[in-house]
């Protein structure tokens, strides 16, 4: 329990033996039970229903679902690398690369997760071969049909008409985890820059900001609130979440897949090092067509096993991944701190 030593803490670590003895504390759980992660709300329902329960059924072991965010899970794993409290982590591309680089993840191949063979190479490359993404979303335009009668067809049109003051636009705040990809890289790419030249993106956002017609959303539900309360008329948002919202009886919300191509990001699951072997069974279920399609029905996101057939409803809604733009995750991750600092200084949201 105390093998890891961290400077001054290392000296005090010896006390842990005493403390552990006093408190009777132990990590020992049923050896093959695992802890898997999920975002909250509908995510948790999907993961529990489609994956965890399936895992329990097949193996007889328990997959406990921990709700939270990657920031918390990665910290917990890094703090306890020898006896990780978490075995499977859900996270976005830059997080996968960073954690893999630190050696927190077990390599994930077709050998231990056979279902990976049916996942297109594209989704393996997206995380540089550290396993693969299991779902993906496109960052599209969503608008209030009552206040926006003639929605824009492209992202550039959205920008131009916002600058003219036709509506109030809501965009993810820079504090939202995926903003570096969808905002900074996405707009740089669209306006002639690239990952090493993001000036075009900052130019656009400076103009939007100065126009006074742009506000920010800080979470995916924040966006829905802003739209529901009339705080914003139009905004950029995830396709799956928009459709799920519409299905709950909010048909006033409209969706436009921009013709200049939405940015796509994907989410991967990885096995944490020193986890019980049963994680591979869990991950194999994650990439299996049946459970994956179950997951997709919940979240209305695209999933990555090519054998999955979507329901009729979803078929028309899910943006095909080859009709989207994807950014270089590693380069984006490398630049994130610098972009955020620049954003803080120049834009503010």
């Amino acid at each position, binding site marked *: 329990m105390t093998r890891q030593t961290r400077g001054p803490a290392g000296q005090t670590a010896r006390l842990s033996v005493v403390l552990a003895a006093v408190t009777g504390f132990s990590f020992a759980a049923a050896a093959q039970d695992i802890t898997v992660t999920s975002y909250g709300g509908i995510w948790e329902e999907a993961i529990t229903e489609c994956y965890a329960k399936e895992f329990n059924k097949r193996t007889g072991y328990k997959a406990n679902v921990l709700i939270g965010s990657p920031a918390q899970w990665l910290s917990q794993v890094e703090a306890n690398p020898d006896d990780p409290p978490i075995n499977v982590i859900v996270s976005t591309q830059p*997080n996968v690369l960073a954690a893999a680089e630190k050696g927190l993840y077990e390599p994930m191949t077709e050998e231990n997760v056979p279902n990976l063979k049916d996942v297109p190479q594209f989704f393996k490359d997206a995380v540089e071969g550290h396993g693969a993404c299991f779902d993906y979303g496109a960052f599209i335009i969503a608008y209030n049909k009552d206040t926006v009668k003639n929605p824009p067809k492209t992202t550039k049109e959205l920008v131009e008409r916002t600058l003219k003051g036709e509506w109030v636009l809501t965009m993810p*705040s*820079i504090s939202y985890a995926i903003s570096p990809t969808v905002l900074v890289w996405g707009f740089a790419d669209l306006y002639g820059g690239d990952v090493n030249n993001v000036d075009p993106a900052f130019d656009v956002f400076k103009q939007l900001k100065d126009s006074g017609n742009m506000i920010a959303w800080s979470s995916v539900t924040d966006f829905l609130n802003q739209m529901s309360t009339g*705080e914003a008329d139009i905004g950029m948002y995830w396709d799956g979440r928009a459709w799920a919202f519409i299905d709950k009886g909010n048909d006033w919300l409209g969706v436009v897949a921009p013709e200049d191509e939405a940015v796509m990001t994907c989410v991967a699951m990885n096995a944490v090092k020193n986890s019980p072997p049963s994680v591979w069974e869990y991950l194999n279920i994650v990439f299996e067509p049946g459970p994956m399609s179950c997951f997709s029905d919940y979240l209305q996101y695209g999933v990555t096993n090519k054998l999955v057939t979507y329901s009729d409803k979803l078929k028309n809604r899910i943006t095909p991944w080859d009709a989207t733009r994807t950014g270089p995750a590693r380069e984006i991750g490398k630049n*994130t701190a610098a972009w955020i600092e620049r954003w803080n200084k120049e834009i503010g949201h």
Partner: protein
Amino acid sequence: MSNTTSATPSAPLRRTRGFAGAVSPWWILLAGAFLVFFFVAPIANNLLNTDNLATLAERNPPSFYYKKLLTDAYYLKIVGVTVALSVGVTLICVLVGYPVALYLVRYAGRWSGLVIFLLIAPLLTSIIMRTFGWRVIFARRGILNDFLLSIDMLERPIMFLNGPGSVVVGLVHVLVPFMVLSIASVLRSIDPQIEESARILGANRFQTFLRVTFPLSLDGIGTGFIIVFLLANGSFVTLLLLGGGELRTLPLLIYQQFTISRDFQFAAAMSNVLLAIAVGCLYLQLRLIRRKGVKG
């Protein structure tokens, strides 16, 4: 007659009230050790060896971050905004809270239990939801705009949210009960007869308040100031949810480092600067209050 007894001023002989036997100075040890071990040590440890977990950015020596924080005009401004916001919110809390404390102590009578209850009740709801309540009020199509539009005060809705105004209102809302209760506890200890004497001596109500009641209650303001200042200094949920990131302070940037940039060295450097500011101010205020006569 006697003219010598008054010649010797009474010296402050008993410097510490109470005798040492009732309480052992060693009783401090448990809490002291607990905080040294579980507060100081972890933070020192964190400062000394934070790895850049889960970020692909390059690593820098700690001095790089301190230099950036203390020389870069942008970050200096952030430090300034942090202090200004805390002080501003605290002062507003004094202004808003003082009459409430006065009412509570002097007029509430048998209602005082209810008043205290209503003061504490907001502290019992989740801060996320309280802040959400404000968002509903301040929204572009929210209650406040609707009201102002309906009485023709406005022609088009104002963006109350995502500005310093909504942040200050939100923070005052969260923190003013602490101020009220601090002031009230001191006001309660002021003998109303002192105020009556001042009235008899010819002071009007306002003068009595200004010259007698207010100076006597400075202790309570001082204690309230400390706690509100510290809480304001460390808050970020309100800034995040009501400020929309518009108003940037150190805690907000620290939060950002944790959740997106994941540059923990920078976060550690910022939190140490924040801690230094807070402890400095706290010590200063304790000294000032002590001089004004709060009993040790």
